[in-house]
Structures are given as structure tokens and as C-alpha cells.
């Protein structure tokens, strides 16, 4: 198998080409200018992940919603499920930046945390 990818680990955006046999055996990656590109390709082919950011409605008098994020990359296939839950939630203030909103979402090891402190 062969696949072309673009590395997103830094702004350069190297064009990578990955070749493998069967279940990612003898995986060979070229086109990367640094080792992080190979790491990215391995992860992206087997289990693509992304940081997810969103806003959730809250009961603050200052702003109608509060920004949240996952504290690590979440498997892509879980993103829509997470967003659906977030958009149906409501946050009770006060909250502090870094506080956990949802712990270990679907056993992904990723928590959803608040990106902002809102106390009133």
C-alpha cells in the first residue's frame, strides 16, 4: 500500500510518502525533513488524532459561553460524539482555566478542560 500525507507537526508542511505491507508492516516513510514527520505519519495512518476545541453555554453574566479544549489529541472517530455532548451541555460557573469538565472521554485518556476562568 502507498499513501501521500502532509505533516502538520510544524508550519513547513512536508509532503510525506508512506509505503507498507499488510497491517502496516515494513512501514517506510520518506519526504520528512525531520524525525517528527515519520512519527506523525505512523500515528496518522494507524490512529489519526486531533485536539478538539469548542464553546459550551454557561450561566455567566459576562459571556454566554465558555471555551473548552481536549488536553490531548483525541482519536478522530470520537470527535463528533464529543461535540454532540458538548453542545448539549451547560456549564455552571465559577470555573477556572484548566479545570476538568469531562474526564477521560470514552477511555481515550483525553480530558475536556476549560480554556478560560469565569467567576461571575
Amino acid at each position, binding site marked *: 500500500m502507498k499513501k501521500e500525507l502532509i505533516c502538520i507537526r510544524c508550519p513547513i508542511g512536508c509532503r510525506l510518502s508512506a509505503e507498507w505491507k499488510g497491517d502496516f508492516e515494513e512501514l517506510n516513510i520518506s519526504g520528512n525533513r525531520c524525525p517528527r514527520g515519520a512519527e506523525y505519519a505512523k500515528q496518522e495512518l494507524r490512529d489519526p488524532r*486531533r485536539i*478538539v476545541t469548542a464553546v459550551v*453555554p454557561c450561566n455567566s453574566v459576562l459571556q454566554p459561553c465558555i471555551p473548552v479544549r481536549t488536553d490531548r489529541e483525541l482519536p478522530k472517530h470520537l470527535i463528533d460524539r464529543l461535540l454532540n455532548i458538548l453542545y448539549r451541555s451547560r456549564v455552571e460557573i465559577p470555573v477556572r482555566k484548566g479545570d476538568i469538565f469531562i474526564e477521560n472521554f470514552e477511555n481515550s485518556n483525553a480530558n475536556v478542560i476549560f480554556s478560560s476562568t469565569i467567576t461571575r
Partner: protein
Amino acid sequence: MIQEETFDVTVIGAGAAGLAAAAVTAAAGKTTIVIDREDRPGGILRQCIHNGFGLRYFKEELTGPEYAEQAAEKAEKAGANLRLGATVLDMKKEPDGTLLLLVLSPGDGVRKIRSLAVILAMGCRERNRGNLAIPGSRPAGVFTAGAAQKLLNMEGILPGKKAVIVGSGDIGLIMARRLRWSGIKVEAVVEIMPYPAGLTRNIVQCLNDFGIPLYLEHSVVNILGRERVEGVEVAPLKDGIPQTERKFHIDCDTVLFSVGLIPENELSSSVGVALNPSTGGPLVDSGYETGVPGIFAAGNVLHVHDLVDFVSEEAEHAAQMVIRRLNGETAPGGTFPVKVESNLKYVVPNRCRNGQDTRFAFRSLIVTNDAELEAEQNGKIIWKRHYNYIRPAEMIIVDLKAEQLKEEGELTFRLKKGEKI
């Protein structure tokens, strides 16, 4: 009588630039006030809820609101006063050399603030459709990308159901993903240039991840709909001219324009600060001082940055110069002009001093993977560096040491394209 207050330093704008500058001047014991018309500090960062900020300045990857909060904490801990919900209406230079600002806030009414130095950190605003010539009526559903971002991320309001984005700058790309993650369809991103204006990684994670088509060398030739947008007509370009016979229709109820930012300098001009037509920001020397002594500038008000970390660093540097100025330390050496030619759009600063470490920031006019940037002074090449990645979307930063800037004489930078493409 209008109440008057006095500070050593007044910073206009509590975005990344203003907060970083204030942290430095306050930490040095200079009484410092930061004025912002918004109710919370952070500026544009507060609406940028995505991650990708701070790797350099805070050594961790943050979202915009997290960066804003950390920057505000740093400024307040250092002892800077934050005056929020207050707008600077006017600025004047007094005969005694002090700077007098007229500030309006709902609580205090109009006040005067006098200081020895002012740091301009007002950021930038978006170009809108009015600055472009696109025919069609003006139905509801047309937004600038930044206005839509504010609506969605700060008010929690969805701008529509089906969108087309005009312009492939990073704000537009980030918004494409944001809309998709909010359940809004994104039908297309339309870009007049043959290459995307934003970063490749944003093309990948914001468009390719969702299968959103990017039409390069295409232009929106018409916006349809009377009350509300009903669609757009898009045509390919040939030598910059729309091929209207090949135009096609895209159904949508929302059009976002992501077509660039302009530094916000009405206030600066009113006090006589001269602007650089290539940046839209003030002309400055290597200490970030404008043509009006005592007035400094940093961040997006000076030139539009793509990375907030460089905004904070630039502002810290400007603040250091303000401190030196207030301490009466006069810089050694003479000043000389800095110019750009071939393939470079601009350079900041525009004047430089010999015998002083200086950061130069440039924008390229070309896309290339093989180029040499060189600096010439008095007929000699005093510095050069090879680059294997140059994009107009990414600022080029060059730090030269005092030893490299020993002499006086006009300094010219040029970007020479290599053999490879």
C-alpha cells in the same frame, strides 16, 4: 473639570502586545496603565478558541483564551494597572513633551491620562467586502471571518447553515473547521491566488480533514439573494480576469470574507505618527519608536503578525526601549535607513542604529523553497542566509547582533530566488 491621572507609561490596547509590554515596564518599576475598550483583556486572542498559540513564548501549546489569561496574569503580577471598558478617544503631544490621552468609560465618563511614554498596541481590524469590488445586493448572511468567529465563539450564535468562504487566509481556514464542528456545512473556500494564503497545516486539518474543496485561482463574481444570501457564482481566473462563461453556482446562506487585516491607526495618525504604506503601521526605528518621540508601537498595530509569540516578543522589546528612554539612557551610534527590494514586501524597523542588537521582520512577496536573504550595506554583503521554505503567509524574522551592525549607512535587504521551485 475633567479628572486627570499621571503614569510613566500608558499602553493602548490589552491584547497580547499591550499585556507583554506592560508586564515589562511595570516590572521595571515604571507606573503603567493599560487601557482597553473591551471588558476583558486579551484582544483578538479571546475569540481564537483553537490551539496553536504560545509554543515559543509560554513553552506550551495553548488556545487563544489560555494565552490571553496567562499574559494578563503576568502583567497584573508585575504591577500594571488594567483599565478595561475604556476607549482612548484622542491623543496629543503637549508643549512640555508629555502625552495626553482623552479616555472615555461608562463608569468614569471622560478622563485625561498624562504620561511620559505611550505604547500603541491597538491591533488590527479586518478588511471587509466594502474594500473589495464584488457585485450583488447586500443581503443578510455576509460576514467577515473574524466577525463570524466572534459571533460563534463568544456569543454562541450560529451564523447560518451552509457557508462559502472567500479567501484562504488562516482565519478563513480555522473558521471552516469551526463551522463544520458546529454542524454548519462548508461548501467551498475560494481563493484568487494560485496558492493558498494560509499555512499548509491549516489546509490539512481544517479543509482536507472534512473534504472541503479549495478553488484556487477562482473568484466570487456574484452574491445572490435579496433578503438573505441564496448562493454565490464562482468563476475561474485567467491572467487575473474572471472567465464568466465558465462560472458555476454554489448554494449557500452564508458568505465569510477572510481577506486580510489592516493595522488600526486612526489614533496614531491623529497625533502625527507617520505610517508605512507597505504595512499600514507606523514607521519605526529599531527601538520601535515612531516618528513622534515618546510614542512606541508593537504587535498588529505595527504590522500584521501570524504568530502571537512574535507579537509578545516584539512588545517586550519595545518596552525595554521605553524603559531606557525613561531612564535617560541615550543610545550610542547614529541611525540609518533600512530598505527592502526584490521579492520583499516590507521590513520592520525602517531605521536602525549601529552597535545595537536588532530584530528585523519581513514579508515575502513570493512562494519558494529555495531562496537567499541578504543584507547589503555600503556596497558589502554583511549577512546572508539560505531558506528552503518561504511563504507570504509566514513572517521572516532575522536577529542581527550589534557586532554585525557595526557601521552606519543605508541597509538593504533582498530575497534572491534560487534554482529550485
